Every structure is written in structure tokens, then in C-alpha cells.
């Protein structure tokens, strides 16, 4: 299960996909358990996993700021203008 005793350097090649899935939360059950068990014993994979988890959290949080009010208002007007192009029918 564990191939790389160094604490730096790139993650184990065969673990990259599974570590990505574990970091984003899509790996479940035994796959997730295996990834975490590997990372617990493999320095580079642990670092890779932690780095991904942190980066993904930052990306997810980046949208929490919301839009500036004026932008939101102008976009709402655009939506209304587009809707006005839809013909009444029947």
C-alpha cells in the first residue's frame, strides 16, 4: 500500500485520481478508506491530499462574496429584457 517514504516530492502516480476524488468528497466507502490509509502512511500523498482539500475549499468559498449590487441589478434587467422577447402564444 505504501510506496514512498520521502516526505516531499510528487504523490504516487497510481493514487492521484483517487486522492482527487477523496479531496472533493466523491470517493466513498472502501475507496475513500484506502486513500486515507495510504495518505496516512505516505508523506507525499498526504501532502498532496491536504493541499487539494485546502485549495478546493478556497475555490468553493470564492463564490460566497456575491455580486456587487449594481451588477446584480443590471443582470436582473437583462433577464427581464430577454424574457420580454418571449412571445405570448396560444
Amino acid at each position, binding site marked *: 500500500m505504501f510506496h514512498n517514504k520521502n516526505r516531499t516530492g510528487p504523490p504516487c502516480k497510481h493514487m492521484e485520481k483517487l486522492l482527487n476524488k477523496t479531496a*472533493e468528497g466523491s470517493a466513498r466507502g472502501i475507496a475513500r478508506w484506502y486513500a486515507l490509509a495510504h495518505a496516512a502512511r505516505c508523506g507525499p500523498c498526504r501532502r498532496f491530499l491536504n493541499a487539494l482539500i*485546502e485549495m478546493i475549499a*478556497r475555490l468553493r468559498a470564492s463564490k460566497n462574496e456575491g455580486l456587487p449590487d449594481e*451588477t446584480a441589478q443590471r*443582470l436582473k434587467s437583462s433577464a427581464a429584457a*430577454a424574457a420580454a422577447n418571449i412571445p405570448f402564444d396560444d
Partner: protein
Amino acid sequence: MPPAGANRKLEFEQTALGELPVLYRVARRLTGDAHQAEDLVAQALLDAAKGWHSFDGAHPRSWLIRILRNRYLRHAQREASKPRHVQLNEAAAMQKDIWEDLDWQMIGPKILDALDELPEEYRTAVSLCDVEQMSYEDASLAMQVPIGTVRSRVFRGRRLLREKLAWVVNEDVS
């Protein structure tokens, strides 16, 4: 199916209103510019209104993003001659240990700037799946590529983003 008759306008407007923040953020990542992003959303909404009668009602977010992105890509082809992205210094990036801890205090505000420097297919994949937290299925509908392709673009995109971020640190200290 969107309802026929007078409700169709209302249905469209309600669907669009709910997706405006996502559409704007995706447009902002595509165009790299706040003003152009607003224009792109406005134009995409007009396209969407035209196509509303034929929309089946499933995955409205993917449908709207697909329209937005297709409009952008048609336009971007004309502008392909002016490269906006500075090439990463590959040799320097290879030497750098990109998975070492980053100073997020310093780098945090720059994460979207770094994302904006990735090639479009990686930038959009990360933007849809990591920023907007869309499922791979919804992202694949929006980008019109298989789910496996989206997934590999996201994985590769994360690595490229990490290289950019490590490079930002490098640049600032040197």
C-alpha cells in the same frame, strides 16, 4: 416542459434570475473582465429566450451555461490571435515543489486570478466543478463533453492551478 402561454415569460425569468450569480461568475472566468462578463450574460440570456420554447426543462443551469459558453467560444475564435495568457515557465515550475504548503494569507485573494490564467477547458472545468460545485454530469452537459473528460480536466486543472499559485509565490519573493 416550460408551460405554454403567458406563464412562459415568467418561467423563463424565474429560471434566469436564479442562475444569474452562477452565470455571471462563469462569464467572468471566461472573459477575464467584469464588464465583458455582464455583456456576455445579457447576450446569452437573449439566446436562451429564443431557445426557451425548445428547452426540455432538465438541468437548466447546464443549459444556460452551455448557451453562454458557446456564445463566448464563437466570439473568442475571432480574438484567438491575441493571447491573453502568459506562458508558465515550465523549467522553473518543474524545479519548484508545487505541493508544499502555500501562504494562503498572501495567496488567497489571488486564487481566481491564477485560475484565469489556465487554458479555457481547464479553467471552465474547475470553475464549474470546484467553484460552483456542479456535479460531473451537470458540468459535462454544460461543456458538451463526456463525464470522464470533465473529470480529467478538473484533475489536470487543479494541478495547473497549483503550479500557477506556486509560481505566484515564487514571483513575489524573487
